């Protein structure tokens, strides 16, 4: 194909262009022609098509995501909000923290190892681009049924990829989720979260300003990988058998990561920041150079001119369109004042990182790209990056919602005898979703950097950020697709409430939120309704809890044929703790301590793990949410930690009280004697998933002080038992040896994947 220049586009306006193959709708193509006043060149078409894809433009979600801004709670901590690579939050002592969760779902299904690995790579670069040193990662994952043969292909690959990349980068993995459900069979969810730390003055933004400043591309060479990755792998054209990708030519849609290169990129970039050599910066992720150049130029004050033929290539046969779309990993783009270029290059050289001046910031307001002297792109950058199409997709509550909600799990048969109750408990704690996850988490380095205070299986991951003062941050991610399926509004709030509670349980004060919204096709009104309800629920809850959404990601088209995954918002909450010495772990480590149950237990079994494990049932209404109660519970847990009253605490969620006690006992290495509430059916007492609850272990000397505090503040607090022995003894019901529980709980994943 000959070079399609701007001149050519003017001279040959009638050329037919493959906009549909690139995923553009006829009216979108028409709009591009109107913007440019001519037909786009093939390079321009490539840029618009990737940048206007759902993945990059948020065209279906934008109108809903706006609520996160509109309903944003007053929060002094927020330094940078939605719209940048990641939000930034003030955590005191001059420190700022940036964090974000993103999806790499489709690529991880096609090629689990590399898909997951590059998912980590991408989110780490987002955090780095804010000016921060990445300090930890987390990996919320969803797979198909645990016993399904394809899960045996996908899960070990994904886990090895996350470990292979993250371990090699030297970032501790401090938490995540592993959930199995048949709804994710053809659509596993691989979400990745990264958190980074910087001083306030180190915040960097993605903008190109100052005419004459240079555009420097640095990191890996550009190859043919991932071309069409955005448009193929993250778009509606994705189908189950589309492994090879259907991008242009026979370029692979799969990207291969090089964590070693990324590690150099991190150290190199941090040194560039330290010497104040960077005026603006953007990572290269989805849509590669198209995205980085147009976003930098769009957010800046001037225009930009790029000489595309200067881009260092791994494959010299690449066309300019392909170079613009390539998603080769481990690349960054910086805006640098001319006076700093020499030093910039020196530092890159020190780290063996290839750096090339590929363009400059111009006076005008156009993004102009040249190929061997000929102009191939001449566009207003905003129209590419920030003023893409916006859809108000139709949405409607699905017809089946009422039927589903009417089919409550509270009516299902319950275990009748003590023996049955015991068997049920063992079955629940051994079920893949509730079983011990060490088989996975042992493949992740949690120690590197030497600041990990809490990691798996604790309620939240916690890292120290200042060795002198002990200042630290805690993070938890949660999302329950089953609850969301039953009621997306409430389900989203439950996800937030749980992550918020997890952070507070470890003693940290919840500050801010990131979210990854994993859904089916936005073209399905039922899915769009789930999405609308989810965003509304999340925004409302964030407002009440005072924790703003600082950024996140939307992943649509997670569906096979007509069947969408459960709506699955994954919510990450970041908290701060003044002194990590004060953290509260989950394990019952001290015999003789008193176990207290905080909060109210209702008959709420619909959507629960019990309903799934015992009856393979999903129906009814999810547990009720009481955000004021969540707030109060959090305040008590934080106060208890701060004042040294509690030695262990564990939030109640999936699997209810039974699961929480089992985890606290196994982790701490001690049994417990427990009295179940008389006024509750034992199945409800053990397995209800009512929100707003936690168990705590307090030394006898602190019991009164702690329960008085609860009473004064109006938080229900019941003494349910004592840490003791090597059995779990539910008095009057059944006793089970800790060893038996341990074998059940720890054997499952090893048996399935080991």
């Amino acid at each position: 194909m000959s070079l399609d220049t701007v001149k050519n586009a003017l001279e040959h306006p009638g050329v037919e262009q493959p906009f549909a193959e690139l995923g553009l709708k006829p009216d979108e193509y028409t709009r591009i022609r109107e913007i440019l006043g001519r037909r786009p060149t093939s390079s321009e078409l490539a840029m618009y098509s990737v940048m206007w894809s759902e993945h990059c433009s948020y065209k279906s979600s934008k109108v809903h995501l706006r609520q996160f801004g509109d309903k944003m709670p007053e929060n002094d901590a927020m330094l940078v909000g939605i719209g940048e690579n990641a939000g930034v939050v003030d955590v005191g002592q001059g420190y700022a923290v940036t964090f974000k969760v993103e999806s790499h779902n489709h690529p991880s299904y096609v090629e689990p190892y590399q898909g997951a690995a590059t998912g980590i790579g991408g989110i780490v670069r987002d955090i780095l681009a804010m000016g921060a040193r990445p300090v930890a990662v987390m990996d919320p994952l969803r797979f198909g049924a645990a016993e399904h043969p394809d899960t045996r292909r996908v899960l070990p690959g994904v886990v090895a990829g996350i470990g292979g990349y993250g371990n090699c980068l030297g970032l501790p993995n401090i938490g995540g989720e592993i959930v199995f459900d048949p709804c994710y069979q053809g659509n596993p969810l691989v979400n990745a979260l990264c958190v980074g730390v910087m001083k306030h003055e180190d915040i960097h933004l993605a903008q190109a300003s100052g005419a004459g400043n240079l555009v420097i591309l640095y990191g890996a060479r550009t190859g043919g990988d991932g071309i069409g990755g955005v448009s193929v792998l993250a778009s509606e054209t994705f189908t189950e058998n589309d492994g090879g990708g259907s991008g242009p030519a026979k370029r692979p849609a799969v990207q291969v990561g090089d964590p070693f290169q990324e590690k150099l990129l991190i150290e190199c970039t941090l040194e560039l920041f330290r010497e104040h050599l960077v005026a603006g910066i953007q990572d290269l992720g989805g849509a590669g150079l198209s995205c980085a150049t147009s976003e930098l130029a769009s957010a800046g004050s001037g225009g930009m001119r790029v000489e595309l033929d200067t881009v260092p290539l791994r494959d010299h046969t690449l066309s300019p369109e392909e170079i613009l779309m390539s998603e080769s990993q481990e690349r960054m783009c910086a805006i640098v004042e001319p006076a700093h270029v020499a030093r910039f290059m020196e530092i890159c050289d020190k780290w063996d990182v290839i750096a090339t001046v590929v363009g400059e910031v111009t006076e005008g307001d156009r993004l102009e790209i040249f190929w061997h002297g000929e102009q191939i792109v001449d566009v207003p950058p905003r129209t590419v990056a920030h003023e893409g199409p916006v859809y108000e997709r139709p949405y409607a509550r699905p017809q089946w919602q009422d039927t589903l909600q009417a089919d409550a799990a509270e009516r299902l048969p319950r275990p009748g005898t003590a023996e049955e109750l015991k068997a049920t408990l063992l079955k629940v704690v051994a079920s893949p979703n509730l079983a011990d996850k060490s088989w996975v988490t042992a493949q992740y380095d949690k120690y590197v950097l030497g600041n990990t205070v809490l990691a798996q299986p604790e309620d939240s991951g916690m890292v120290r950020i200042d060795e002198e003062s002990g200042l630290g941050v805690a993070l938890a991610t949660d999302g329950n697709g089953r609850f969301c399926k039953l009621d997306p509004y409430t389900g989203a709030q439950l996800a937030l409430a749980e992550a918020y509670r997890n952070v507070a349980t470890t003693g940290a004060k919840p500050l801010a939120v990131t979210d990854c919204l994993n859904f089916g096709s936005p073209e399905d009104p039922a899915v769009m309704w789930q999405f609308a309800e989810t965003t509304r629920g999340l925004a409302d809850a964030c407002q009440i809890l005072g924790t703003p959404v600082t950024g996140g990601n939307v992943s649509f088209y997670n569906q096979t044929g007509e069947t969408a995954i459960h709506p699955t918002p994954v919510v990450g909450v970041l908290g701060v703790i003044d002194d990590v010495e004060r953290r509260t772990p989950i394990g019952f480590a001290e015999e003789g301590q008193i176990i207290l149950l905080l909060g109210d237990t209702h008959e709420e079994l619909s959507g629960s793990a019990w309903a799934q494990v015992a009856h393979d049932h999903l129906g009814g209404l999810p547990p009720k949410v009481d955000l004021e109660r969540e707030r109060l519970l959090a305040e008590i847990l934080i106060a208890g930690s701060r004042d040294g009253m509690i030695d262990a605490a564990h939030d109640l969620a999936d699997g209810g009280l039974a699961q929480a006690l089992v985890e606290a006992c196994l982790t701490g290495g001690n049994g417990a004697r427990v009295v179940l509430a008389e006024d509750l059916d034992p199945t409800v007492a053990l397995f209800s998933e009512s929100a707003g609850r936690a168990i705590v272990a307090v030394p006898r000397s602190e019991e009164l002080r702690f329960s008085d505090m609860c009473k004064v503040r109006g938080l229900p607090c019941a003494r349910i038992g004592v840490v003791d022995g090597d059995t779990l003894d539910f008095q009057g019901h059944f006793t089970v040896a800790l060893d038996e529980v341990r074998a059940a709980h720890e054997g499952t994943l090893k048996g399935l994947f080991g």
Partner: protein
Amino acid sequence: MTIRVGVVTFPGSLDDRDAQRAVRIAGAEPVALWHKDKNLQQVDAVVLPGGFSYGDYLRCGAISRFSPVMESVIEQAQAGLPVLGICNGFQILCESHLLPGALTRNDHLHFICRDQKLRIENVSSAWTSDFAPGQEITVPLKNIDGGFVADERTLDMLEAEGRVVARYLDVNPNGSRRDIAGISNAAGNVVGLMPHPEHAVEPLTGPTTEGLPFFTSILKRLVNA
């Protein structure tokens, strides 16, 4: 007199700052050494930290072994400079032939991060003199290429000369021959160790603080020297 302990940073080193912290907590002064620089800045001892130097591409430690800094480390180690290689550092020492044997893929083929129980078998090396003979400790272990292998003759020699510095207890986490977790050279100044004592020096961030004697041993020896 402050003891100065160099910690080398190779491209892809990860636990270099952790090793520096451990050195500091032990009461010595950490000195950052750079792989491209032959100058060891007159340090009293050197730690080759964990990580994935050069991405562990080709073989762990294979590329780092040829770095400028290793020229000096090899030369001075042969002359008695105490050198501790942790994990990737152990691999580099084997590739450099300062230590015999090699480290190969874990027998279960996975990366493994766990709190590992060890027995200190030799308390006469430069890096283990602060342990009690036969002391049992628990420190983190994390690697994917941690299986120590050598031919039978070499293994017998290591045993006979008391050069097995630490052995895995309870579980052999990677298929290491004879449960070997660490070895020393004949002179006892060069030690390679697969587990990570630098991650067990603070109660807050480690499973124990039982890794600390590796770093205090060197002080005692140097101060007494």
